[in-house]
């Protein structure tokens, strides 16, 4: 099958998922439960995607744990997204250089 048929199908499904709720909902939602639910969604979703997957994303779990700890400490100190992301990544790289760690 032509790969562009696959790509088109993927793109259409993904766009509709993003577009329909955005355009169909008019005005503010009145239900307090739904507004509360929607407020918590991003935090729940981001954390569910990050943990525990992050611990298996590097070449060694120790490197990943070190990266996560550095990220959390810097985030607690109020550092920006870029600083935290870069520091986590550099930490993982440096720890993965330690010989004997797999």
């Amino acid at each position: 099958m032509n790969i562009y048929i696959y790509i088109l199908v993927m793109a259409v499904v993904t766009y509709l998922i993003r577009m329909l709720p955005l355009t169909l909902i008019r005005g503010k939602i009145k239900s307090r439960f739904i507004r509360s639910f929607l407020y918590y969604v991003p935090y729940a979703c981001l954390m569910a995607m990050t943990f525990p997957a992050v611990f298996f994303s590097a070449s060694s779990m120790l490197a990943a744990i070190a990266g996560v700890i550095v990220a959390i400490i810097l985030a607690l100190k109020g550092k920006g997204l870029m600083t935290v992301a870069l520091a986590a990544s550099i930490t993982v790289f440096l720890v993965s250089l330690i010989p004997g760690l797999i």
Partner: protein
Amino acid sequence: MKTNKSEFRTGLKDGIPIALGYFAVSFSLGIVMVAANISAVDGAVMSLTNLTSAGEFAGVRIIAAGGTLIEMVLTQFIINLRYSLMSLSLSQKLDESVTFWKKLIIAFGNTDEIFAVAMNHQKSLTLPYMVGLQSLPIVGWTAGTFLGAVASGLMPERVSIAMNVMLYGMFIAIVVPVAKKAKPVMIVASIAVGLSSLFYFVPFLKEISAGLSIIICTIAAASIGAVLFPIKDNAEEK
């Protein structure tokens, strides 16, 4: 006009860290695509039109296996269903100036990270801000995929693996400061981590696809939060 311009610029600036993170992640996506016999150009088109990490990873696997289109539709639907929740949240924060046609544009780039940054924005969301916010990440995601495919094999694996962690670092940087200030957010985040770990390790539960488990964890943790700690009437309009 002047405010439009500054809204656009603010968006661009807020998009820089996302764009850099995307560049790193899509770089490794490009490497995966080459292994599945997808060319750099085809891969770049996929990234430009889809803009979804998990969805594209799954899509590449289906293409490599010669899967059916039904399979493709179902997989994309399940893995990307979380975007509908995000779009629903986003619809509540849009400025009154955002009409139907403008929503069609904003919807295109509603990714996890763009959504998170948009929800953290101190004002209601306008089209210029959202277009600014989305442009650089779209460029980064597409260019990263293309260059990753081209450079596949030239780069030490250790570097690309370390770059992968950037995305998770960004997620942590988004959630931790809010959780530090608001205890309910910390509890909801902890519940999500706990549930997600169950889906990762417990036999039977771990058969459930990553996309579906994210949906279940998100709905469960956010519902518990909404029942235990309903937000005050104007809390979402920071």
